[in-house]
């Protein structure tokens, strides 16, 4: 037995891989192929399907009307990825470098939302952001906000929901990358007279703060310029005092791989998400996921639904393949294992 296995050294790994590998081939790869076939169907669930190229040949007519949903998914997912980055980076930085004996506790708190139901968490935001809920109700009572102001059922609520739900996906990879940064490099930079980041900090902070609050200002329907100016001032102040030259030249570049990993782990689920749009948005905020879900499960329109899913999958695969080629998959796996 032992010598037999040694002579045929490929048998053992094959036997180890076969059960799980087959499961993935049969229930991941083959269904994807089947979905491509279904995109070639025409007919309906009742009458049965025949193969045809209708969906693809008539692409401009039959699918063009879904382009806005794809576009909206991309915009929302990109916006949410940006906000998760802005929230997660300082958090991951604090845990990695200032966490001390609270490090594990803080990491646990970051993933704590995963221990409650995704749906219940999102419903919680309905309660928190409700028109007369604890936040808006209070602000309206003291007349800081107009009576008609609302967050729920707006694009802002959808993006905020996605941001919250996928925040750990950004925080963990950034943390893993920052934890590996050799602090002696930072000290070396300081010895070499790396000081406060002047004037870069104020400029970058001003731009980031200005753009962020400017966008918020547009959403508020208030004076965007006023908001942008306030944001620029606050951003400039924060960056000026907080961001040092050693951070910009040493720490941040060393953590960029984690930022990219977190970006991918946030963007990919965000672009396919439909729960946040359904529970926190309105019909005008429907993303491509809402359309696919509705076509598959309510209208039973498999051909169109499969075509849309296939386009989404192809787009995601292109992004993921480029990512894996350029940056490798180590960082992502490390982050997943960390969770």
């Amino acid at each position, binding site marked *: 037995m032992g010598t037999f296995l040694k002579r045929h050294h490929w048998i053992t790994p094959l036997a*180890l891989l076969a059960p799980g*590998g087959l499961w993935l081939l049969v229930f991941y790869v083959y269904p994807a192929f089947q979905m491509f076939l279904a995109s070639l169907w025409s007919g309906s669930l009742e009458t049965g399907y025949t193969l045809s190229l209708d969906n693809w040949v008539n692409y401009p007519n039959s699918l063009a009307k879904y382009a806005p949903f794809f576009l909206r998914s991309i915009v929302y997912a990109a916006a949410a990825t940006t906000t998760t980055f802005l929230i997660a980076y300082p958090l991951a930085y604090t845990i990695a470098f200032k966490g001390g004996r609270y490090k594990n506790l803080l990491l646990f708190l970051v993933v704590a939302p995963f221990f409650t139901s995704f*749906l219940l968490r999102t419903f919680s935001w309905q309660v*928190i952001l409700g028109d007369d809920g604890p936040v808006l109700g209070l602000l309206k009572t003291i007349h800081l906000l107009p009576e008609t102001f609302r967050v729920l059922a707006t694009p802002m609520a959808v993006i905020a929901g996605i941001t919250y739900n996928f925040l750990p996906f950004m925080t963990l990879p950034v943390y893993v990358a920052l934890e590996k940064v050799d602090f002696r490099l930072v000290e070396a930079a300081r010895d070499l007279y790396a000081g406060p980041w002047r004037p870069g900090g104020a400029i970058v902070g001003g731009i980031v703060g200005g753009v962020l609050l400017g966008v918020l200002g547009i959403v508020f329907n208030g004076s965007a310029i006023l908001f942008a100016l306030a944001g620029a001032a606050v951003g400039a102040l924060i960056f000026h005092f907080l961001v040092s030259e050693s951070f910009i030249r040493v720490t941040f570049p060393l953590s960029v791989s984690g930022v990219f990993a977190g970006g991918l782990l946030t963007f990919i689920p965000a672009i396919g998400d439909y729960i946040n749009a359904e529970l926190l948005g309105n019909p005008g905020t429907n993303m491509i996921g809402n359309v696919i879900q509705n076509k598959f499960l309510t209208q039973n329109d*498999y051909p169109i639904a499969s075509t849309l899913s296939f386009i989404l999958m192809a787009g995601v695969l292109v992004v993921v393949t480029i990512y894996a080629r350029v940056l490798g998959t180590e960082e992502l796996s490390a982050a997943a294992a960390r969770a």
Partner: protein
Amino acid sequence: MTAIPAGVPAARPTRQVIARFFDRWSLVVYTLLAVIYLLLPIAVIIAFSFNDPAGKSNTVWQGFTIKYWLDPFGPPGLADAVVLSLIIAFLSTAIATALGTLIALALERYRFRGKGLMNSLIFIPMATPEIIMGASLLTMFVSIGAPPFFPLNFLTILIAHVMFNISYVVVTVRARLAGFPRQLEEAAGDLYANEWETFWRVTFPLILPGIVAAALLAFSLSIDDFVITNFTSGNTQTFPMYIYAASRIGIPVQVNVIGTSIFLVAVGAVALTTLAGRRKPR
């Protein structure tokens, strides 16, 4: 910090004071705010399990009561949904953990042709939006169109959950195997243990913490999965599916009670494994 050199003015410039203040407190305050933000929805879920709503919708605070904690399975169908979710989570965790651990061993221990392809096969499902996995499984089950795959049922949910869990198990166990002291296995071999004995008496106990971590992750992913289950469950109702269906008429308070209980059990499990890991450092 100790001695102030002569000639340095006692009062530092305001600018430096502000910088110091920012340096010391800004990240602390920020982290506190971030933690509050992360925990706020959980606090709402827990608080509203003690709410006493007037009508069907449990979205406005009315008053404190523990009556729903005393009757956690009151609403019809809720108990069945929770039990089904638990069964699927246990079974899918067991199957995915076994299959995933074997793959992790093969990928970490052996060289073979097609390893890159296998790595991709593990990696790509983790980087696929859930809706696509659900949708493609649905099209496959529908095109088969016959039992046991159609109509959709318990089995189709289980198949889906094992599928999306395998990759997470593989990367978690691999992380543990990567730091494995191979000399121990060689020592066992020198002491005339055959491969089978070496695996069970040396390798397995050492990678067990990794396997347990993988199983916990798989369990929590399975019990909370909504999107893929939504596509592969048909009329079968898991706990998340129950919540979704109930949301149209108003989620019963008991859902918050069970959500809170699951949260507490999960926190307890993590605390236990952390403590166990601390007592027996590798």
